[in-house]
Every structure is written in C-alpha cells, then in structure tokens.
C-alpha cells in the first residue's frame, strides 16, 4: 500500500503511509499506541475507506470498499477485539467466513473440517463449543482459523499477545512461522520490541501516523528500533525515589469476586497499601486485575472478603462508600467508565463532586461548575478543551488529564489507578507519571495496576503479581528483574 491517508473528526490518523509485505514473511508493524497502526489495518481490511492512497495485492491494485472486498483480495485480519459471534459455535463462526461453505449447512462435516484445520495449525479447539464458553486464547485461535479458511494469503494480527500468557504467545509465534513457511504473508501489529525481534523478518516503524522506516530485524538492535519508534533516543525514565511511608491506608483481606462471565475472577486476594507508597499490580490482562480494582472501588461486589480504608470497613459494592472514604479511581476504560462521553467537560469535572460545593440543596450552581472546570483545565493544562464541549471530543491523553484532574482534586487518601497510560503518547505518559509521583509524595496510598512492566518498575515500591485471580508473588520493585516478574506472571514460579 502506498500513500494512504485517513482522517477522522479532528485527527489525521494516517498520513501518507506506505507498507510493503513479501510472500512468506512475517512483517511487524511497530509503533506506539496512537501511531496509527490499527487505523491502517482497518483501511487494509476494508473497514475504513482511505481518503487518499492506493493498495495493491499480488501486484494488482485493489479497491477495498468493504470487508468483503478485502476477503476477496485475500486479506484476513485478527482484530484486537475479536469479531466473533458469541452465541454461535466455533464451526459456525468459521463457516460464516468461509466463502466455499455450501448453501446447506452440514454441522458434523463442518466440525470435522475445523478439527483438521486446527490440527494442521497446531491450535487445539473444540469445534462444537459456543464462542462465549471459550477462553480468550481459544477465541483468538478461532479468529486465525477463520482467516485461513476464508482463503487469506495475507494475515494481519492486531496486538495478538496482549491477552496471552507468555507461553500462549510462544505457541502463537510457532503457528505464525508455520503459516509463513507455507507461503502466507503475516503482518504483526505490535508495540512490543521483543516480539518484533523474536518473530519478524522485517519491520516497518510507524510514528505519528507516518511510516518512518522499514528494516530487517537481523540488521537492527532493540535500542535502534526503540528510538525509531519514539522519534528520539529513549532515555529510560528515572526511577521514583522512595518517599516517606506512613500507616496502612487501603487494606483488602480475602477478597473474592466473580467476573463478567460469572466465573471466579478473584480468589482470596489480600493486600495493603500505606500512605505515600506505590503498590504495583502486575499480570497478563484478564488475570483478575480489573476485577481487583473494581472491587476495591466498590464497582463490583465481592463474593467474600473485606476492604478497609483507615481501618474502617467499606460497604461492599457501593462506589459511593468508597468515594466518601477517600478512594479515588482512575478506571481502565476511561472513555466509557471514567467519563460520560456525550456530556460536557464541565459536567465530567464534577461527576463525583456534584453533591458537594457546586450545589445548594437539590439545585446545581451552574456558574460555579463552569468556573471549576475552567480552573482545572488551566491547572492541568488540558489543551484544546473548553468547559461546554462534549468529553468524547478530547484525545486520549487530554481525556486522561481530565479524569486525573477530577480524581486528584478530590484530595483522596488512596488512589486506585488502572492502565493509566494505555493508548497515550510519550509526552502524555510522562505527564501522567508525573502526577502519580506527586500523589505519592503528597502521602496518598497509590495502587497502580498495569500490564506495562517498565511502568511498574519505574513507579512502584512493591509489586504484587496476579495469576488466575490470585496473588502469586510479591517483589521489591527496586530489586526485581523483568524476568523474575515475567515468570510469576506466567504462573510458573
């Protein structure tokens, strides 16, 4: 593809991007979050239409008006969010994507064929199971089989390892190499350097919506790639100096909870965070970290155990109790949980404090709300924000600043932060980290949930590691290594 440009309301997500992938190669597309990788791939699979540029497959120019065109051109995609029909079986989902599937469905026959494909790709999965009964890793296998069975010659995977354990990721890489050896072209979208070095033949680096360079992985070092990716020499961020640590503020004992699917997501978790301390929570996504943050802040009821703030027990499953006790929360899903996206920035600034000083009796003091919003926008340097504009128009970084501004301005005793820098650019990440350092220095007890080990090692005092809903280990952040934590995350140590 050449010179592809795609604009969205307010942003140019791809600006004159070019990419060339050879047959039988694993090609990595490397870039930070927000560099335009996912948009580019959505253009390639016909979901978005480019405003400019052209795409060629096998030397012939193609026009991709819809996903059907992309499938016809032999391009298959495994999205970050799976595009599977949850109520249908594995075989039915694969039949949906299979252009050769007969008009009359033959259930048994289809299931047997799926089994064969699964064996050929070393990906065991039960073809008769309904999708919603499968684990995330199994669902990903279904996605890959779907793409293969629909006759794809080019397979694109968007951040495929984000939801996998290191072992599952290894198995996936094996499958990808098998596919490349059979003549498929595999495009791996990622921001993880070690994956690029491990599995890719060549890599194209994307930055700020532009393609910066294409290089062979055998000819570059990790550090060179890193500086290409962020646009300057990366200086590892300075470790946070340990501050003055006070009494236990936030304490959980024997917490258990169910996840969205009704299975146990949290099992007998106990932890405590002291004033001025940053406790990191590490783990592969989906091992109970989100549920832990939600239980601590009252969003999710616990099926067992207690949460205490300053020694006082919180009412279970009541976010208001947690807010009153001084627990601030920066949620993982900032656009859907952290703000009401269609409401004004001013409304979102007072989302939790509207009962307090900005109201008199049952009435709101609209002027005071607007003034409060204007002040926080200035103090936290939220660029391009006006109080009456809807929050969803803000970029990810500015949205996160609004959330942080609101949470910090409530003068919390404890702060539960989940994936605070996911999807942010380097500048915004530094700002967010700065706020977290300040909070800890002010004596706030910070619980930082993150999948980014570098982030945890930079900011945390102690790190606990979660695996399958339980805490499987605790390390001193200043003495621990990435490898040590990685083994714990995989559940092997």
């Amino acid at each position, binding site marked *: 593809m050449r010179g592809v440009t795609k604009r969205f309301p307010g942003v140019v997500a791809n600006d004159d991007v070019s990419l060339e992938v050879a047959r039988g190669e694993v090609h990595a597309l490397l870039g930070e979050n927000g560099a335009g990788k996912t948009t580019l791939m959505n253009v390639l699979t016909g*979901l978005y239409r480019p405003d400019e540029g052209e795409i060629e497959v096998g030397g012939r120019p193609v026009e991709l008006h*819809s996903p059907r065109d992309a499938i016809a051109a032999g391009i298959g995609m495994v999205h970050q969010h799976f*595009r599977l029909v949850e*109520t249908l079986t594995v075989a039915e989902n694969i039949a*949906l*994507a299979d252009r050769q599937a007969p008009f*009359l469905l033959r259930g048994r026959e289809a299931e047997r064929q799926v089994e064969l494909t699964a064996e050929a790709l070393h990906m065991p999965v039960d073809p008769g199971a309904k999708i*919603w009964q499968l684990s995330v890793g199994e669902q990903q296998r279904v996605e890959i089989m779907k793409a293969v069975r629909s006759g794809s010659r080019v397979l694109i995977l968007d951040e495929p390892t984000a939801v996998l354990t290191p072992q599952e990721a290894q198995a996936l890489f094996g499958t990808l190499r098998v596919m490349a050896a059979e003549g498929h072209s595999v495009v791996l979208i990622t921001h993880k350097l070690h994956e690029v070095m491990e599995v890719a033949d060549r890599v194209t680096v994307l930055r700020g919506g532009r393609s910066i360079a294409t290089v062979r992985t055998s000819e570059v070092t990790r550090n060179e790639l890193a500086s290409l990716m962020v646009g300057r020499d990366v200086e590892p961020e300075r470790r946070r100096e340990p501050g003055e640590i006070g009494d236990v503020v936030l304490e959980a004992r024997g917490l258990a909870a169910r996840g969205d699917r009704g299975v146990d997501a949290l099992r007998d978790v106990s932890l405590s965070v002291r004033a001025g301390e940053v406790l990191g929570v590490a783990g592969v996504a989906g091992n109970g970290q989100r549920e832990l943050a939600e239980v601590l802040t009252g969003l999710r009821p616990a099926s067992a155990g207690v949460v205490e703030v300053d020694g006082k027990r919180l009412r279970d499953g009541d976010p208001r109790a947690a807010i009153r006790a001084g627990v601030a929360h920066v949620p993982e899903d900032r656009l859907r949980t952290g703000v009401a996206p269609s409401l004004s920035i001013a409304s979102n600034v007072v989302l939790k404090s509207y009962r307090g000083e900005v109201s008199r009796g049952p009435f709101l003091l609209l002027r005071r709300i607007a003034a409060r919003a204007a002040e926080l926008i200035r103090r936290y340097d939220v660029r391009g924000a006006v109080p009456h504009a809807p929050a969803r128009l803000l970029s990810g970084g500015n949205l996160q600043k609004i959330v942080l501004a609101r949470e910090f301005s409530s003068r919390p005793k404890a702060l539960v932060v989940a994936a605070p820098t996911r999807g942010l650019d380097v500048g915004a990440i530094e700002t967010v980290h700065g706020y977290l350092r300040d909070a800890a220095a002010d004596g706030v007890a910070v619980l930082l949930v993150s999948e980014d080990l570098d982030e945890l090692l930079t900011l945390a005092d102690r790190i606990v590691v979660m695996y399958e809903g339980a805490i499987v280990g605790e390390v001193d952040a200043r003495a621990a290594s990435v490898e040590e934590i990685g083994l714990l995350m995989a559940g092997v140590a």
Partner: protein
Amino acid sequence: MNEGIVVVVLAAAVAYGTPLLFAALGELLAERSGVLNLGVEGMMLMGAVIGFLCVQHVGGSAGVALPIAVAAAAVAGGGCALILAFLVVTLRANQIVSGLALTIFAGAAGLSSYIGNDFELADDPARFSFEPLNALGLGDLPVLGPVVFEQTWLVYASWLAVAAVAFYLWRTRPGLNVRAVGESPAAADAMGIDVTLYRYLHTVAGGALAGIGGACFSLALTPQWVDGLTAGAGWIAIALVIFAFWRPDLCLVGAYVFGGLSALPLILQARGVTIAPQLFQALPYVMTILVLVLVSTGTARRRLGAPAALGIPYVREER
C-alpha cells in the same frame, strides 16, 4: 369440560393463532437480523385492507382472486416494512419511534383506514373467503379432524412457513448469516456479510408475512373489512416472538396458546359461563412479561438467543 368444548377451543386456537403465527414469523425474521419493527399492527392492517380490496375488485373465481389478494397483502405489508427499513437501516433513525410512526401511518387511524373508507369497503361482505377444507378426507376423525384437518389453506400455509423459516435459519448458509447479523453486526461485517442488505431483506420479508397475517382476518376469520379489525394482534405478535425465544417452532406453539386464550372467553360466553374475559385476554401479555424477565440475565440471553444487536443501528466507521 366435555370433549366437545375442548375440540371447539382447539380448533379456534388454531384459527385465531394463524394470523399471529404469520405476523410473529415475520417479526422473528426482522428481529433475527437486528431490526425491532414495532409497526406490525400497521402492516397487518395494511395487508387486511389491501387483501380485501383485491378480493372485491379482482375478477375471476375464488381460486384466482384469493391467491392474488394474499399476494397483494404481502406486497402491502412488505412495502410498509420497506419504508421502515429505509428509515432505520439507511437513515439510522430510531427503531422504536420509526416503528410506532409506521403503526400510526398505516394503522387504524391512518392509511389502512383511509383506503378502506375511501373505497367504502366496510359496506359489503367479502366476495370470496378462505373456507375450511376437509384435507385428505380426514376431517371426520374425532378431535384431530376438526383441529388439524378441517382448516383453511392459510393454516396449512402457515405450517409450511414455520418449517421453511426454521429450516432457513438453522440449516442454510444465509440463515446462519442472519443470525450473525442480528447477534454481532460488526463481526458479520468483518466476515464480508452485507449487513445492510440482510436487514433490508428480512425486514421486508417480515412485513410481507405480517401483511398475510392481516389478510387472515379480512379473508378468513371475519370475511369483511372494518376499521382496526386486527384489534391489537400485531402487538400480541411482537409479544409472541419474545415468548417463543425467537424460535419459529416455539412460535407455532405460542401462537396457538395465545390464539386459544383470545378465543376462549367468546366460547365460554356462548356456553353461558360467566367469567371476566379480560382474565384470559391479559394472560398473553403477562406471560410475555414474565418470560422477558426470565431471559433478561446475561447467560440466559446467550442460551436462549435474543439477538444482541436488536434495535441498534449499525454504523461501520463510528469510533
């Protein structure tokens, strides 16, 4: 209760259930593709009036006029559904408001009444109507005879329709596609299924079936036309789809249960039993609410199959 009344109730249940069954199958197709069409009542009334208009004005024998009338009723219902499909699929208008607008437009105080009154249809009985036939000569069998074998062609056609819809949904490729479109349009789209086309086709096909359901009233049940003759059957059909967990086979059972409940008070009254008819008439609605409460939890929904994308417009590039 003696055997006589049981047979009468069962036969009436089948007769009164048939328009419900047609309309519910149609609504089921639309809902399976993710379109909640609240205009069923309006589409049925259009089918009833257009079917009746045809039978009064098309020449020829009953064998010619009646099939033409049913086809015209289907076209009328499908045409109304096409308006709705254009609004909610192409123009992304709200499905609830659009469906109600369709009922107001076509319903008892709208176009169907306008056509009926403008052509002065209310004055005469139907020239032809569907008569019960003695199928296979088995009409004289005890119980089964009057209930199963002494029904009109429309009843037999509805059984065929149930089988066809069930086969289509569970055994064919396009049927699988519809289920995917109603459950997860984004996934279906990514697999190259034309969400827009599927929603159009199934909404319109659903409208056609609702039109035929309406024609059951004016051509078979009470072979005449009066304003609002369906008397809320369209709304019961919407309830029936939920009651039947969005499954055609259960629609058949539900239609006869609901049909029997609406016929029962009349039959009891004729036999001198005094009981408030509202008690039976309210049951379909109350049962539907109970069923809806039952299937409202997440896991139950997944197992039983309410289309997850029901009522939600699909816009590909939104982010």
